[in-house]
């Protein structure tokens, strides 16, 4: 176990060095110098050989690292943020009381903002219009003081069930997003459910504990309870979960690269290198090294995160 951990940390260190090197050499998005001929590994000028077009394989692998990190980290942050917020809402059963009029006003302002920014006619508008319609209907109901309890936990549960039923990879390449932002939003938006369910269980456990009761009775403010007491504990418990999540993102990036769709046109990653390499199976180094890199990275991240004592 210890040896595997050292190897995993070693590989992550190499990845970090590779990232620095690729930034220094400005190798992003597959800008790789071409060499003449198809060189085998160990040749002068190309340690890992060249691909079928004569591009240096080592530099190609290096140039895939920034894309991998650019892809994995924001997706992870978004996914974590979504899962923590929804877990908190579910575990505390937060149903904010909103005056119906201000609710409608908020939706109206949102739609006006959308109108001004001219993104209103696309996806968000049906939802806003639905909310507006709902608000107008609610206005006619004899609610006490025209106040509405937003059923956030129910909505989140419905959303979770919906997200669970959507096949992620199929959805991703069906939409075929053309920018990193859209891609990260989609991945973050479809991968938060398992973490949210796990966090919800842990948060419920914490909110029932005497530690929380005492802190609450002592009058500790909520933000302090969350940031000082709950989140650090939760993050330690979440590390094994993150192992699956991060490895999953790397596998997904490689899958989309391998399939050749669903990634921005300028994207260059190990999945693409593997696909190109497998078109020429006789040049064994062109598919072997990207394949090994993907396998080593997913395994290392898994070993490092899963190997925490809390796991």
């Amino acid at each position, binding site marked *: 176990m210890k040896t595997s951990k050292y190897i995993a940390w070693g590989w992550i260190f190499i990845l970090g060095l590779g990232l620095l090197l690729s930034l220094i050499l400005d190798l992003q998005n597959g800008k790789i110098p071409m060499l003449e001929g198809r060189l085998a590994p160990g040749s002068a000028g190309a340690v890992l050989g060249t691909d079928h077009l004569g591009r240096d394989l080592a530099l190609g692998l290096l140039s895939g690292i920034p894309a991998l990190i650019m892809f994995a980290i924001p997706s992870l942050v978004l996914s974590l943020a979504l899962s923590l917020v929804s877990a908190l809402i579910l575990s505390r059963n937060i149903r904010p009381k909103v005056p119906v009029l201000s609710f409608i006003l908020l939706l109206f302002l949102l*739609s*006006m903002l959308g109108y001004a920014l001219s993104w209103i006619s696309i996806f968000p*508008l049906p939802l806003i219009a639905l909310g507006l319609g709902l608000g107008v209907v609610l206005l006619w109901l004899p609610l006490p003081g025209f106040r509405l309890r937003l059923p956030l936990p129910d909505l989140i549960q419905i959303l979770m*069930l919906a997200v669970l039923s959507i096949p992620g990879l199929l959805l991703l390449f069906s939409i075929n997003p053309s920018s990193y932002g859209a891609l990260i939003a989609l991945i973050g938006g479809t991968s938060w459910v398992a973490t949210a369910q796990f966090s919800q269980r842990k948060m419920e456990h914490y909110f029932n504990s005497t530690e929380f009761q005492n802190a609450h009775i002592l009058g500790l403010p909520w933000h302090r309870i969350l940031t000082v007491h709950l989140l650090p504990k939760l993050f330690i418990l979440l590390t094994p979960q993150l192992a699956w999540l991060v490895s999953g993102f790397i596998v997904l990036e490689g*899958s989309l690269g*391998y*399939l050749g769709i669903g990634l921005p046109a300028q994207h260059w990653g190990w999945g693409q290198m593997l696909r190109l390499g*497998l078109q020429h199976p006789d040049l064994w180094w062109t*598919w072997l090294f990207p*394949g090994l890199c993907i396998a080593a990275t997913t395994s290392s991240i898994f070993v490092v995160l899963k190997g925490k004592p809390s796991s």
Partner: protein
Amino acid sequence: MNWVFKQWTFALKMGLSFLCILLLGFGLTLPQGAVHSNSKNKNAPLIPNSDAPAFYVSLQPSILPSDYAGLPNCPQKKTLGILIFKYGHGLDWIHWFKSMHHQQQLPSAEVFESLTKDSNLVASAPFLPIHLRSLKPIPQNWFSALPSLHFHSNNLFHRYAFGDSKQNQGLISGHFGYSLRNHLPVKPLILNAAKSTLRFAFPAFILSCMVGLVLGLVSTFLRFPVLPMFLISIIPSYVLGAFVFLAFDWGGSTLPPTVENENIVQIIKAYSLPILTLVLVHSSLLSAHIHFWMQEETKHDYYRTALAKGLRPLHALFVHALRAILPLILTFFLQRFPLILSGTVVVEVMFGVPGFGRLAWVAVSENDQPIVLGCMLLASVLAWITVFLNGLFQSNPRNEL
């Protein structure tokens, strides 16, 4: 009564979530506005035969006719809005714009934009019809800029869902539309592809369940470390597939998987490598989980008591511990089941299996939206059914994963 209410609430939530899936599927997978012939290149020519497809509500100045929102998104559209605002007669402008767009004869964005600056240019623009050239600027009222809300339903989404002719009766009648590429009905195409996928994915699923179960139990009994199994399970299928292909396809001894493989030897020769890849991926994950659960189970008091009473370890492990983790294993199977249809894309593309995932992949590459939608819907329905079954199964607290 309470149980019935709970189940009813759960079914209601599932129904609503299914509605969400449909809306998400339609809203996200259908292209917005006209389709660019090359989705990566926004300067590529627009395919003229599509109006704004997803059902939508538009918010626009009240002077603009509701058809304006349905025009394809291109740089000239904004200029058209300004011209309508300035000269009125919105329907005439839109009719002209649509016909020019259909014939791919729209003036360039710069030329079109210059019309907004000088009314003399409109009068002399050669590409405008006479009745538009004769228009004079109208006095602008502040209320014509007020936003108005329009609901649009008679579009591709509407036609896809409810049909528009006897040949296309819509999704509501079980008709998935026609492929844009070869004009064949989508439903048989998808069902044939799904059949082809099930031909190898279902045996692979059964086999991986059996292999995973045996491996998990044996590794627990022999106290093997669990990490290698987790590590194999985390290696992506395209890497495993590549290794399997190059390790076992000696001199091209395997056949390409096609629908013509009829006898059993041909089928085994054709599908052995995809099956092997899927078995490796799924069974390693299952065996790792079983190993982990069994290890947890052996820490319980009942297990120690059984051993202390003189029960053989093999008996205690395979009869008592295995029975305790059986609900977890069943839940795991249920969670993985939808992947037999939607989780084989990479393997199908890699080994050239003419299956469901490959069909979706080709359809996305060729922008064949009806097939993409059909595939998404079928995969979502299967996943939704298994999530529903899983939810029912998990309503018993003992079965929670």
